């Protein structure tokens, strides 16, 4: 039986995210995965990836199920749509996209938590938001470097 490589990536990402305390540093690896996967596929598939990633993240998290599903699905779609407007195979382009998506996602989740009544006070939320956005962007730089430098060119329509 052939296991899709994306599924292996997904398992690896959540394994790392959960075992090494990366969350404590404020890094959102699933978001980076969603953003980079969305950049390389069409909107429906990107949304499906976002939905899957968000579902797993919410299921493994202590919070209520929903915020990450909605946020990641939206981020997948936005990432896919951004293909039309940016040249994707550049480190700074991808990093900037991850920064924007991280910022937008954190704000979106905060709105959802606010709506649910479980959001922390604005001052605390701002601290979490800034911390997460900065750390996720920093991690994004590293990930994007490897993605751009070691991508398989023959499968890349941008350079084919």
């Amino acid at each position: 039986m052939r296991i899709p490589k994306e599924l292996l990536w997904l398992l690896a990402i959540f394994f790392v995210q959960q075992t090494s305390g990366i969350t404590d540093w404020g890094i959102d690896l699933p978001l980076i995965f969603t953003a980079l996967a969305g950049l390389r596929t069409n909107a429906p598939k990107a949304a499906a990836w976002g939905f899957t990633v968000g579902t797993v993240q919410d299921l493994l998290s202590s919070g209520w199920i929903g915020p990450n599903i909605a946020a990641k699905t939206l981020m997948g779609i936005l990432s896919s749509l951004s293909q039309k407007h940016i040249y994707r195979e550049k480190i700074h382009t991808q990093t900037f996209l991850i920064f924007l998506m991280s910022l937008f996602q954190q704000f979106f989740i905060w709105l959802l938590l606010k709506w649910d009544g479980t959001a922390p006070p604005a001052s605390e939320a701002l601290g979490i938001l800034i911390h997460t956005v900065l750390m996720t962007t920093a991690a994004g730089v590293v990930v994007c470097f490897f993605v751009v430098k070691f991508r398989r060119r023959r499968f890349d329509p941008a350079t084919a």
Partner: protein
Amino acid sequence: MLKFFLRNFPRFFLALLLLVCVWVLVYRHSHPNSQHLSLKNLSMAVWMPVQKSVSWVITFPENTLNAVQELGHLRQEVNRLQMENQSLHLELSNHKSLEVELARLREVLQIKAKLPHSAKIARIIAHDPSTWNKSFIIDIGSEDGLTVDSPVITEQGVVGRIIDVAAKNSRVLLLTDTGSSVAGLDVRSRVSGVILGTGQNRLSFGYVNADEDIQPGDTIVSSGLGGVFPKGYPLGTVVKRTSSDNGLNTQIDVAPSVDFGVLDYVFVLPSINIFAD
């Protein structure tokens, strides 16, 4: 005269040699402790280069041949030693890590001896993947007698409480989660309040009147109110107090007594929540 000498040279030479021999024996007899070091050194200095050169000429082809023959063996030996070296390094690293683990477990067992008999040791196996929540999963669950709201502590203080229990795992909500609140007490001034999670590695001491006597450096412990945490376990230390301009509101920042970043083992105490199922 010269003709006579030349004709009898062998005899003269033999006689000279015999004389020298006699002289040597006599000299040795009259100077029994002399070592003739300078002479020996001189002779060695003269002779050894010759000896080495001759020896080298004789042994070079043999050595070269042997060296060529041994090269193959040496390569194999080097490979074998390199592998052995790697294996020993790995073994050493494992030993070091086991040593650290052993020390840690000894420490844990010493602490457990001071806790109630029914306290359970648990290992942290996963962290919360969401950046908005602070929790982790431990490797014991309802099969080990855990229930919701069981307090989780370490030797440093309170970690949090159990919020989900499965058969073999449980989820612990950390003090730092924004949904966490624990009744606290200032040890010095006996002021009561509530320790609230902020979602970051910091706590807040809330529900305290603005004019209460709380100073940076004060230790906050669990007050026992609320029926979840036993009384007297450290929650954190006050690090900053800021009051609003009108003096009506006060913000008290507390550093958690537990370093959540380096936790590996925790203790789960039996639940004392009288409202829990």
